[in-house]
């Protein structure tokens, strides 16, 4: 029973990180209809920024907030400078740009910070006043912080004017433009937010998997699986999808014979399965187009 609880809680913790990535992916997908393959590497880069700030003597929470802020700006700039010029280009061109970004971020990080693994400090205290072998303080903090971030994102879209404008720009760009919303800037804001949420995910996962340039490769794959499972058009679904994938991944490893060997396969089967049988995911809306 202990093992089951340990696996489930660890799954929820790593799953909430997949959720962050899934949510970042979904935000950009909603606005542009494309997966941003560089999402993981952008998050990795943000984490290095936080690591550098900690190295310069900043307290880890300050470094966290600064890195999230810097990522926001960087996201906006990337949209304006790199993504906007190919906005109307064919799908393939856009995907090539995303993959180009992925390779660039990875190589530049390796060039600046080298490829050896680096320990990253946890945002949470080692001692929470109680001790449990079921879940460590960092994992507990990860779950709490992610839920907090998600609540904030939800409130932002639900209750603020900018949030509403962003939703309008994504849902119906033409009408939004007619009522005076600058659709282009809303897209840029979306990129900024996605980069920030990705940064949160990166900074939370780094203390678990260690910081190195390839840190996010696996995480991004599971994040994609989560996003697809929940539905690429549903932010809430993506979050739930991430959590489910995190827990299922651990259960498969434990209870399916030969499961440890099948964890990655499982994520891929999930991706293919959802795309074949329920392309909109569990919570996504089915898009119907009149032709």
């Amino acid at each position: 029973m202990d093992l089951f609880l340990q696996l489930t809680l660890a799954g929820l913790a790593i799953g909430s990180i997949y959720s962050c990535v899934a949510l970042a992916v979904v935000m950009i997908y909603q606005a542009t209809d494309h997966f941003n393959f560089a999402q993981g590497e952008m998050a990795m880069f943000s984490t290095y920024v936080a690591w550098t700030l900690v190295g310069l003597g900043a307290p880890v929470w300050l470094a966290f907030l600064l890195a999230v802020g810097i990522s926001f700006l960087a996201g906006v700039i990337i949209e304006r400078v790199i993504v906007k010029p190919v906005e109307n280009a064919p799908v393939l061109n856009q995907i090539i740009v995303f993959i180009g970004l992925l390779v660039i971020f990875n190589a530049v990080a390796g060039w600046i910070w080298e490829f050896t693994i680096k320990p990253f400090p946890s945002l949470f205290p080692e001692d929470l006043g109680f001790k449990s072998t079921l879940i460590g303080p960092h994992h507990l903090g990860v779950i709490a912080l992610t839920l907090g971030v998600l609540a904030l994102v939800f409130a932002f879209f639900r209750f603020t004017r900018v949030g509403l404008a962003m939703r309008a720009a994504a849902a119906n760009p033409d009408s939004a433009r007619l009522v005076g919303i600058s659709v282009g800037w809303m897209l840029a804001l979306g990129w900024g937010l996605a980069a920030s949420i990705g940064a949160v995910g990166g900074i939370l996962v780094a203390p678990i998997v260690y910081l190195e340039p390839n840190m996010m490769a696996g995480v991004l794959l599971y994040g994609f699986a989560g996003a697809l499972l929940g539905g690429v058009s549903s932010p809430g679904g993506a979050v739930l999808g991430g959590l489910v994938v995190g827990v299922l991944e651990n259960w498969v490893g434990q209870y399916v014979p030969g499961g440890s060997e099948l964890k990655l396969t499982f994520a891929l089967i999930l991706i293919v399965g959802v795309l074949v049988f329920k392309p909109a995911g569990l919570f996504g809306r089915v898009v119907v187009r009149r032709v």
Partner: protein
Amino acid sequence: MHIRKLLAAAAATALLAGTAQAADMTGITDTTIKIGNTNPYSGPASVYSTIGKTIAAYFKMVNEMGGIQGRQVDFISLDDGYSPPRTVEQVRKLVEQEQVALLFQTLGTPTNSAIHRYVNAKKVPHLFVATGASKWGQPDKYPWTMGFQPTYDVEGEIYAKYVLENVEDPKIAILFQNDDYGKDYRDGFLRGLGDKADELVVSMLPYEVTDPTVDSQILKMKESGANVFFNITIPKFAAQAIRKSCEIEWKPVHFLNNVSSSVGATLTPAGLDCSKGLITAIYMKDPVDPQWKDDPGFKEWVGFMDKHMPGSDLTDVNYAYGYSVARLMHITLDGCGELSREGIMACAANLKGVQLPMVLPGITVDTAPDDFYPIQAEQLSKFDGERWVAFGGIIDASK
């Protein structure tokens, strides 16, 4: 019948012509000798690129001192980014365009696998490759390829022998990377356990390099009740495994493969306290170990580093590795009577009792025409919270 006879005659003629041919002197002139190499100067394995840089600095020093048998060494080291297709491309360039005499210390298991057949078909010496896989020592099948360091499976065997002799009622858990490297270690270990393997191993789990963590494997292994843990992982996952087992208070006799034994790259990130008691096998002098302070080999290496690679991080064992293996190449060529491709290969296959500056005293390089494994001995050492402390004697797996 007629045709078969004809073919046989043709084959015999070809054979005769072959023996009559002059030795292959490609890459060797009266004043120079060209040596080719690939190293990951970019990409995921770039930590190891210090090896290529050290070898380049070593040959530069040799050239300043007059070269090898009066010949200047032209050492050409190209970047393959640890990507097998690029290794193929770069090695073709070295062999066909640059016309090197031999390839030396090409780095990596997947990368060398990609050129293994090619260099043997081209009959280019492929010496002292930088990988611990066991497949580099097959002189009958691949007579032009030779390894250098103790192989992974030999190391695994050494741990198994230790377990059988020193752990009471062992119940063993094995975590391994699901590729050639991980399986080499695993198979050597299982062979060392002998016919008791099935009974003693209670949990054997793989992981993929793309997995974010190995946490769930560690949980499962603790649950299996194992009291011995053989950790066959690269530094990132090794650090995760060490930390996780510490967190959940699982305290088996923990063997860490030499691949991840670096204090700086693995144990410090994992936590030095959590790393206490780890056991690994070593064959090189640890540069941070104070017992070598007055050792002539160590002093020689430090002198070289100060003069030719100033400002380098002397705790990185890869500098010591690069220096030692470059010395072996130097010794092989310097003592070689016939400098041709065949001659060099024959010299490499007849090394006896060569002591290298940063290899542990008592461990020597020995090869023979049917033994292409230069170093086959190691010593166990335990981590005391600060550094690796060797214990027991040298264990020679070839005996």
